């Protein structure tokens, strides 16, 4: 590790922390959309439980990273200013409501679980935004990028799941995926425009290909596949599954890069040089 004035890559949050954003985001996105998907009771329950399991896996992953694992409960101590605490409370609410929804099958509980899931992923976006030491994270629009990435991943997973399960694809699912990937591409475009000038060259070099993939393979390709699937019935399921997988994989790669590869600090600056002698 270099301690010079030039930005260097933070090493405090590694793949374990990234997994919380990846799995938690996908799980929350899936939960948020599954609540409104007319999937039939069994698929509904499976989608909701899968979403919750992904969120739990993400939290377990980040738990592996903390230094004092037996004190993890202290994460709930600062709801007043810490988005990490708020994320934890949102996760608690999500599990409580989500499991109740699966248990009772009440549509209202499914809708509330959806809200809790969106709240959870919003907190994740704010966690990054509050990290003032990392220029790629502190840009305010990162919150919306994280949110739409999660919804895109959730929609992708839902569509792929339904298609691969051989179930009839609900009419809303391709539309939801299309909308999500377009919104995600727009969010990336806005974020990129605002953050570009503040990034260290190596951070930009890491982020740019992942963002390009988010746009090309994560938005254009799924949209093309959805149109193709809509036009050719025989390939509708395959096209839907591929569209979902593309949306999911590009979102995961982007978040991994954002958290692990593009997380350079801003180093140190010397706005004035010392004036020695002559006075």
């Amino acid at each position, binding site marked *: *590790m270099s*301690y*010079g*004035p030039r930005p260097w890559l*933070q090493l*405090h*949050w590694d793949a374990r922390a990234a997994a919380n954003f990846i799995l938690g985001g996908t799980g929350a996105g899936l939960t948020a959309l599954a609540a409104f998907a007319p999937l039939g009771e069994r698929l509904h329950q499976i989608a909701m439980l899968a979403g919750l399991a992904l969120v739990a896996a993400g939290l377990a992953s*980040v738990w592996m*990273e*903390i*230094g*004092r694992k037996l*004190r*993890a409960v*202290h*994460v*709930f*101590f*600062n709801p007043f*200013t*810490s*988005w*990490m*605490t708020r994320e*934890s409370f949102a996760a608690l609410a999500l599990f409580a409501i989500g499991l109740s929804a699966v248990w009772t099958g009440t549509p209202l509980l499914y809708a509330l679980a959806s809200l809790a899931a969106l709240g959870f992923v919003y907190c994740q976006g704010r*966690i990054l935004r*509050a*990290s*003032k*030491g*990392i220029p790629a*994270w502190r840009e305010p629009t990162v919150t919306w990028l994280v949110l739409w990435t999660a919804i895109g991943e959730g929609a992708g997973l839902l569509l792929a799941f339904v298609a691969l399960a051989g179930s009839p694809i609900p009419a809303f699912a391709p539309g939801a995926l299309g909308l999500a990937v377009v919104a995600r591409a727009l969010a990336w475009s806005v974020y990129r425009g605002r953050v570009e000038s503040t990034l260290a060259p190596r951070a930009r070099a890491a982020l740019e290909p992942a963002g390009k993939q988010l746009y090309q393979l994560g938005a254009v390709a799924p949209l093309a596949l959805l149109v193709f699937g809509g036009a050719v019935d025989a390939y509708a399921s395959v096209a839907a599954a591929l569209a979902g997988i593309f949306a999911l994989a590009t979102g995961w790669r982007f978040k991994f890069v954002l958290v692990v590869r593009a*997380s350079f*600090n*801003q180093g*140190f*600056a*010397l*706005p*004035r*040089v*010392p*004036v*020695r002698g002559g*006075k």
Partner: protein
Amino acid sequence: MTRWAMVADLRRCVGCQTCTAACKHANATPPGVQWRRVLDMEVGEYPDVKRAFVPVGCMHCADPPCMHVCPSTATRKRADGIVTIDYDLCIGCAYCAVACPYQARYKTDQPSFAYGGAPMENEKETFDAMRLGVATKCTFCSDRIDAGLAKGLKPGIDPEATPACVNSCIAGALHFGDKEDPQSNVSKLLEDNEHFRMHEELGTDPGFYYLWDKAAKQGYGRGRSGG
């Protein structure tokens, strides 16, 4: 009110790292952990290149991002402006470390010693298991300040009540005192010299000032911030 602040005169710092060594000695930090370190910075393009030695560490911000993000409330700010970490509360999530724009925080998960696995005698005595797996950083030697104040001493003036790095500075580049006291050493230095603070644009209101020139007597006024 008191606000303890540190002032580094960049015209005087020679980059000897004595403050770094003194800090390590006083606080028993493990290898790789430098609560006080001195950067060797080059500025400009050939042939107009200048070199400066810049002491850095925790800036004890008035609006510390590390405190706001801390989920466990382990990081707090005292009434006198010193930002502290409660090792009993900290869960070692390192959120504070990525929130700090000054890279002032460290987390050491395993014991480490200067000569490999076996600690030297002094390391045995100073080893503190409470610091494993939690965030650590410069404390402004708050224990020395508190003990000194209890004895009626003045931090920044009396060495016994002054941070170790300031005491050790061979060039008189580092100063410590109460910025809210207009008669204090640091207030006078800030009044008489042009100064800036690191990454002021982030709005953290750091308590660490860098002097870079004498204050202009006319025109720009005295002691203005150059950041």
